[in-house]
């Protein structure tokens, strides 16, 4: 039976001094793009490292296409294409020699795909890795990740350091991978507008806790921002209130049900559609009230 999820995390725990990932659970369905957002130090990179088995989990379960990421490590990794925030390759080697050395590990590696992507990304294959700009390094990591027929792409801040033109092109390419080839993708980012464009499922993490994991429509159509006087906002059901901040002209609150909020506040406050940026700011803000 084909597993329903490309990626499943259940009760995953990892503790560092001064930081803990607490019972993290979320899923990315097959053929979907999952976005991981959260403030700096919230645990996004730790989650990606745990999925890739770069660090050891203390509890919980991580399954990739139904396979345990530790027990079936080799098979799982042969189906994952990865791009890290700071790509680590051999500085003093040409891109082509790194292709030769690393491509051999993948049973479905395609030189043809790699060379095509290298041409499209304008990568100088005979140049040493250290001679590339940060953007070109990310493009090289992407070309490597996309050349072995991976079923799941895992990317940690892949768009950081890329110019807006290539960022847009990358997002288009990711969407195309999904539509044409049925791939699944998980990526973490600070650039929330990227996620609004392409993500199907959005998972928000803060201080090592998963605050929510919702579909884009559930979040952007269901949630809302209420702007008005604080006493009006206080009339809202506290269970709806997900975050709040105070400004010079009143307060802003993030609510998980825009319709319900509208019925309570009527014309005494403004209820707007929410953006991911606002979700980040209101949930990560110092004046948050509840989650």
């Amino acid at each position, binding site marked *: 039976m084909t597993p329903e999820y490309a990626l499943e995390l259940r009760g995953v725990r990892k503790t560092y001094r001064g930081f803990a990932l607490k019972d993290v659970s979320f899923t990315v369905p097959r053929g979907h793009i999952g976005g991981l957002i959260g403030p700096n130090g919230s645990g996004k990179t730790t989650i990606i*490292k745990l999925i*890739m*088995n*770069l*660090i*050891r989990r203390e509890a919980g379960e991580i399954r990739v296409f139904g396979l345990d990421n530790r027990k079936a*490590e*080799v*098979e*799982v*990794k*042969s189906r*994952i294409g*990865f791009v*890290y925030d*700071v*790509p*680590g*390759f*051999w*500085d*003093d*080697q040409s891109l082509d*020699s*790194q292709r*030769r*050395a*690393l491509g*051999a*590990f*993948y*049973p479905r590696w395609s030189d043809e795909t790699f060379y095509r992507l290298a041409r499209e990304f304008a990568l100088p294959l005979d140049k040493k890795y250290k001679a590339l700009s940060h953007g070109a390094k990310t493009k090289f990591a992407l070309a490597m990740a996309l050349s072995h027929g991976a079923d799941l792409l895992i990317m940690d801040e892949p768009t950081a350091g890329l110019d807006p033109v290539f960022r847009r092109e990358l997002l288009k390419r990711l969407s195309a991978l999904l539509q044409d080839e049925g791939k699944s993708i998980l990526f973490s980012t600070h650039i929330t507008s990227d996620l609004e464009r392409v993500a199907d499922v959005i998972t928000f993490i803060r201080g090592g806790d998963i605050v929510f994991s919702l579909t884009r429509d559930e979040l952007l159509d269901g949630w809302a921002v209420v702007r008005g006087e604080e006493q009006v906002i206080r009339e809202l059901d506290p269970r709806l209130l997900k975050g709040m901040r105070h400004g010079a002209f009143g307060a802003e609150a993030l609510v998980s049900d825009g319709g319900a909020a509208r019925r309570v506040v009527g014309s005494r406050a403004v209820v707007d559609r929410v953006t991911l940026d606002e979700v980040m700011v209101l949930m990560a803000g110092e004046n948050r009230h509840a989650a």
Partner: protein
Amino acid sequence: MLRNALRKDLLLNARHLWGILPWFVWVAYAMSEPDAGRITAVGAGFIGSLMATTIAAREDKLRTSATLASLPVRRRTLVQARYVVACVVGTATYLVVAAMAAVLPWSVQRAAELFEVKTLLLTLTLASMVIALLMPLVIRFGLLGVVVFLGAFQVLGVVLFVAADFFAARSGVRHVFGAVERGIVSLHAGLGQPGPIVETAVIVGISTWLSFRLSVFLAERRDL
């Protein structure tokens, strides 16, 4: 998979492995020295293994460890490849030096002596011991670990000599170093007979196995 890991180590570290070349220049010069015979060839094997062992530590410096650990290969296999590469480079270095002794016109060394089985076995023994000692350090602490270890060894030597001078026991220290030298000479002589060969092979085998198990244990538990 081991084949791919070996290929990766050789391809991506080739430039640094060529760093052994300057050593060959010195060895070529030493070939004209009557006293520099076998010890030069054995030392070359030792240096070759040492270099190949520490070259692997570059991966930490270049932050490529996470990339490697993300490939569809077990960390155990990557560690295995490091041992094999270090051993192969050590043996190859020895063989090149022995061949140089036979070929270079100014060489006063007798090539037949350098190609003796007992000399080759001594090289393998010393190379295996340096690999067994250093590899877990490289895997756990990276380049810094090796530098600190070798530096600490140097400092220990200096402290020993200063202490020996201070306590007028210099002959005692000389005796210790002399014992090491005599040990190597007697090991070399012993490796011509079946008994010591088996004993040495068992000791080297057990040390390498323990070192490998420790390296795998450390590599698998290392958070990257």
